[in-house]
Structures are given as C-alpha cells and as structure tokens.
C-alpha cells in the first residue's frame, strides 16, 4: 500500500512537471526552468523558518515567489545590465542557491527536516510518514499526495483553459502581442506555475532532481511526435513510466528512489533517441535504394 501511494504521488509530480516542461522546452527556456527549481530554495528555507512546518501555505507562497523572482532577476541582468542571456541564468540561480545553502547552515542547524540531502533528492521514502487518517483508522494516503493533487489540478486546469494562450506564446510571441494578447502576463503565469510545481515537488523529489522531471520527458516526447497535444500526452506517459520503473529499480538495488527515477528517464530518452536515429538512417537508406 505504501509503495502504491509513493508511486502515485511521484506520478503526479511527473505529470505536473511534464505538462509544464513541454511549454518550457517550446519556449526554449529549459534552463530557465532549471534556474527556477534551484532558486526556490531560499524561499523554502525562509518560509520554513517562520512557519516551522513543511506543508504550510506561507511556505508555498514564499517559495513560489522566490522562483518567480529568479526569472525577474534573469530578465534584469540580461536586459538592463546587458549581461549575456545564459550567463545571466547561471549567475542568478547560483546566487540564489548559495543564499539558500547559507540560510540552511544558519537557520536550520541540527534540523533534520530540511538538510542538504533532501535539497538534492527529496524524501520520497519518507512521504508516507506524514499520513492522513480519517475516521481514526482509515488511511487514505500521505499528505504529500493531496498537496500534489491540488497542485496538479491547478496546473492541469491552467493548461486546459489557457491552452491557446500558451501555444501562441510559445510559437510566436510577437504575433501574440500583435493580436492584443498580454504576453508578459502569460509568461509570468507560466513561470509561476513552474515555480509552484517545483516548490510542491520539493519534499518529494528535492530541488535539483526535479529538473529531470521537467526536461527529460518532454524532450523524449519531442523526439517521437510533431503534434502538440500528442507531445503533452507522451511527456506524461514517459514521466509516469520513469516513475514506476525507477521505483522498482530503486527498491531492487536499494538506491536513491528519485535518482533511479530520473536515471530511468534519461535511459528512456537515450533508447528513444537511438531508435529514432536507427529508423531515420534506415529510411534514408531505403530512399537511396529506391532511387537506384
């Protein structure tokens, strides 16, 4: 039963990340996603310090804001201070991450809840410790599952309702502006969703490995399809697949669960990449053969 809940929780993380990751990729902002996921750390630590618990709304809001702040700062560095785009990304997230580390060292001394390890790969194995039990004895799953579900509803709903907006924003921002769409609002909404997702995912998969969930499944999906809706579906499929297979592998080899999930995800990417390469060179050969 615990296995089931862990896999379910992680699957929702994977789906949230995959859906948003598709748009990050199409907007050529994969590394901005990476930056956001690192940059939520100081927000998480500060909010945790003041609220004293992991699941608080304060934590959610504070950390999400610090993620969005990162995109602001990146914009500021690159546009106002004329720093190269990728250097601006790198500078911003390393700074915010460093501040987070310092805060952990000063504010969280001896606190086991937020330490370096859980920053890296979360506490997925501990997810089941925080149970929700109703009617005194009916266990209906860990609290994290419900947090994820709520976040999932927000993400899923936003993408369904705002599908046209996100699509146009990603394909042709200038055109979107020309028909009167407030593109910067859409942009920051998307960034906010990414920040929210990484914050919520923090206690499950950590702040660093979440990038694997955000980028790899959408990238794999982009290899197999040319259709946007199909890409969204495939990304979720690859994400969930990696969660299930990764969990089993982790249990079998007794290694980090999150690490195994992302490793499997990367392997699936490699596999798909290889297959597509093979198919392409085969079809190229057959075309040549046909012409001869």
């Amino acid at each position, binding site marked *: 039963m615990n296995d089931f809940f862990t896999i379910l929780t992680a699957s929702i993380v994977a789906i949230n990340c995959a859906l948003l990751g598709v748009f990050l990729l199409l907007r050529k902002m994969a590394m901005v996603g990476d930056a956001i996921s690192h940059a939520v750390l100081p927000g998480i630590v500060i909010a945790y310090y003041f609220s004293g618990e992991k699941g608080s709304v304060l934590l959610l809001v504070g950390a999400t804001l610090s993620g969005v702040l990162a995109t602001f700062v990146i914009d500021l560095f690159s546009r106002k201070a004329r720093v190269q785009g990728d250097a601006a990304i790198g500078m911003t997230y390393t700074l915010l991450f460093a501040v987070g580390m310092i805060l952990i060292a000063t504010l969280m*001394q001896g606190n086991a809840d937020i330490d370096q390890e859980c920053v890296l790969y979360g506490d997925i194995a501990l997810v089941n410790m925080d149970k929700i039990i109703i009617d005194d004895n009916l266990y209906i799953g860990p609290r994290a599952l419900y947090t994820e579900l709520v976040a999932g509803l927000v993400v899923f709903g936003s993408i369904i309702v705002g599908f046209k907006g996100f699509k146009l924003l990603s394909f042709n921002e200038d055109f979107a502006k020309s028909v009167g769409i407030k593109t910067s609002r859409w942009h920051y909404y998307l960034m906010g969703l990414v920040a929210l997702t990484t914050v919520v995912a923090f206690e499950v998969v950590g702040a660093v490995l979440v990038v694997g969930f955000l980028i790899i499944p959408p990238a794999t999906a982009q290899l197999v399809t040319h259709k946007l809706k199909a890409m969204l579906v495939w990304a979720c499929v690859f994400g969930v697949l990696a969660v299930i297979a990764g969990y089993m592998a982790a249990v079998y080899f007794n290694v980090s669960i999150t690490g195994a999930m992302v490793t499997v995800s990367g392997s699936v990417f490699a596999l798909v990449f290889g297959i597509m390469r093979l198919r392409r060179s085969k079809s190229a050969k057959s075309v040549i053969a046909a012409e001869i």
Partner: protein
Amino acid sequence: MHSFTDFFSFSNANVVYVVLGMICINASSALVGTFAFLRKRSLIGDAVAHSLLPGICFGYLVAGEKNPVLLLAGAFLTGWISIFLVDYIVRHSRLKQDTAIGVVLSSFFALGVVLLTYIQKTGSGNHAGLDHFLFGQAAAITRDEVSLFVVILVIILTVVVVFYRQLVLLSFNPEYAATIGLPVRLFEFVLTSLTVLAIAAGIQALGVILISALIITPAAAARLWTHNLKWLMLLAVVISIFCGVTGAYISYARTAMPTGPWVVVTLSLITLGSICFAPRRGFVSRYYIRRKNSRKITDENILKTIFKLPGFQNQDTELTFTRVNLTEIRPFDTKELHRGIDRLIRRGLIQKSGDDFVMTTSGRKESARIVKLHRLWEQYLLRRTRIDTDHVHSGAEAIEHIITPEIEAELERELGIKGIPEDDY
C-alpha cells in the same frame, strides 16, 4: 579581529591548504570561464559539473578508496562524455541546445546520485567525504589535493599562454578560424578538456551546483570593466581569487558557515557592484554621462540662442543681453537657464555686468561654432535624406551637441561647404 590575524598569518596548515586550493581552483575556472563566456557557452559548465558525479563514483568504485587521481580521471571522463552528448543531441535531433544540456545534466546527475547511494549503502571501503562532491567542502582540502590543483592550474595556464591567439580566434569567430586553416576541432577539444579539468578540480570544494558560478560569474563581472581580452582574463582571475579567499575566511571565522556558498555570494556581490559602478557600462556612470550630456545640451542651446540675438553679427560693438532676451527667442526652463549661464560664466564664455551679461570673444566663437555644426547637420540631412521642411530643425536639434571635430571636418568635405552655411528656410 582575532580570527582575521589568525587566518592571514597562515600559521594553521589547514588554512594554508584551503587558501592555496581555492586560489588554484578559482584561477583555473576563471580562465576557462572567460573562454566559455566569450563563446556564449556558459551553461555548458553547468552540464559538465553535474555530469562529473557519476564519474567520481566510478573512480571510487574502481579504486575502492578516495584516490584523488582516479576520482579526477573518472570525473574527467564523464564530464567529457557529457559535452560530447550535448553536441551530439543538438546535431542529430530537433532539440535545442539548452534542452540537450538539461537532459544530459539531470540524467548524469541522477546516475551519480544512484551510484552514491549504492556506495553508501553497500558500505564498502572508506567512502567518507564522497558526498562532499554534492555540496562542496572546501575545509576538507588535503595536501595531496592541493598539489593536484597546482598541477591543473599550471597545465591550464601553459595552454592558455602558448595557444592564446588560437584560442581567442576560436572563441570570437570559429568559422573564420576554420577558413584560415586553424585545426578548429583540435582546439575545441583542448578547450573542452581544460574546462572539464577546471571543473573537476573545483567540484570538491564548491559542489556540483555552485561550481558553475566560478565558471560563469567572474568573466561576466570582469566584462563590465574592460573590453580588452587580456585585462578581462586577468581581472576575472583576480576577482575570483579574491572571492575564494574571502569565502574561506568567512567560513573560518564563523564555524557554521560553508565556504562555497560564501564564495558565490561575494562573487555575485562584486558583479552587482560592477553593474552599478563600472565605468561606462555601470548604472551610476551611465547616469552621470547622461547628466553631463543634458547640461552640455542646455549650455549649447543657450549659446545658439545668443547667436540669434540682433546684435550678434555686429563684431565691433559689445553684445549685452538679459535672460529675458533669450527666453523671448526660445523657451528655456528658468532653473536650467540660470545654471547654464552660471556654467558659461565659469567657462569664460560670458561675463556678468550688473544685471546683464556680456559675450566674450571666445563666447562669440563658441556660439558661431555650434550654429555652424547645427547647420552643417541640417544640410547633410537635406542632401542625403528626406525631411519635411517643418521637421528640419527638430531633427537637427540634438545632434550638433555630439558632433566631434573629425566629423565636422568630414561634413565640410562631403558637403563642400566652408564657413557657416546659410540658414535657408
């Protein structure tokens, strides 16, 4: 201040190792980072850093202990593979470079985490300190490692000095470099190897995530101060070393403080400071330049207006005027006019006589010069471009203030005009 003298007397062997280590690491990564920055490939360092982790674990599994050379070798190998993979993915699929970087870095890093937990749980050998590679532990730098870092720095320095011109050409314009017969691939290989080497050296002290800052930030900060590549490199190295030592000191002075994050924070502070205060490119100096410009414009507009006073053409009589005379010809902001006239008096172009002002000889000359520039520019625009005549003046308005003597000469030559052109509309 106790800790300060303690630290900088270097009486503690540990302190010496840490400081020496940080100097080598920071200098190495700032050097290779400059090239990465110039090639707009700053984030590659990110991919490499994350990808070193599995290599380090492999190195450990092979050696069965923390052998610095084997760990480095493993790290070097996977770091290299990661760069190769990023390029391969970009070349053979529709994925963009940053997607490829993201895929490679998270996959490799995850593999590293898996191996790390595997090593920890099987408990074979002495794996203590292996997790330093995740977050960095500068205080744990040993004597052996310092020697290794020195060797790496010497290698990087030598290559950069010996192949300086080739590397610069490669960074600025690889296509051109290829056309003149530079073995581009070879030098890319060299540069990549140096990058991996520098990151591998620094990873134990800074950790996989923060090491990127050592590659990216020094060059970005130094770039705000200079255009000259050699100075850029030197400055990046100096900034980086300064921050490395500062970070080590903070961590020494306050027990709970980690070194790496403080190095990064001081680096970022210096960058922010540069963004504000760097000459020419900094916010503050840009503000002062703009203020100077707007004063110059006011002053010259006053001079231009004086030129239009009825008595100006008559060289023999003294030209006296009041502020009101000027504002009748051209609307001025009262405050600005006051200040402008004060400045002109200080420059000796105007003299005060009672309540009126008198034009000096040099003032007359300056007035005429500005009017001439104004009209030259007008003539140029009329000759070369299409302007509706009611727009001529407004278009010329701001530009005569920026025309240098060289451009003035060129304008005269191109238009074939000597002296002050007629104002013919």
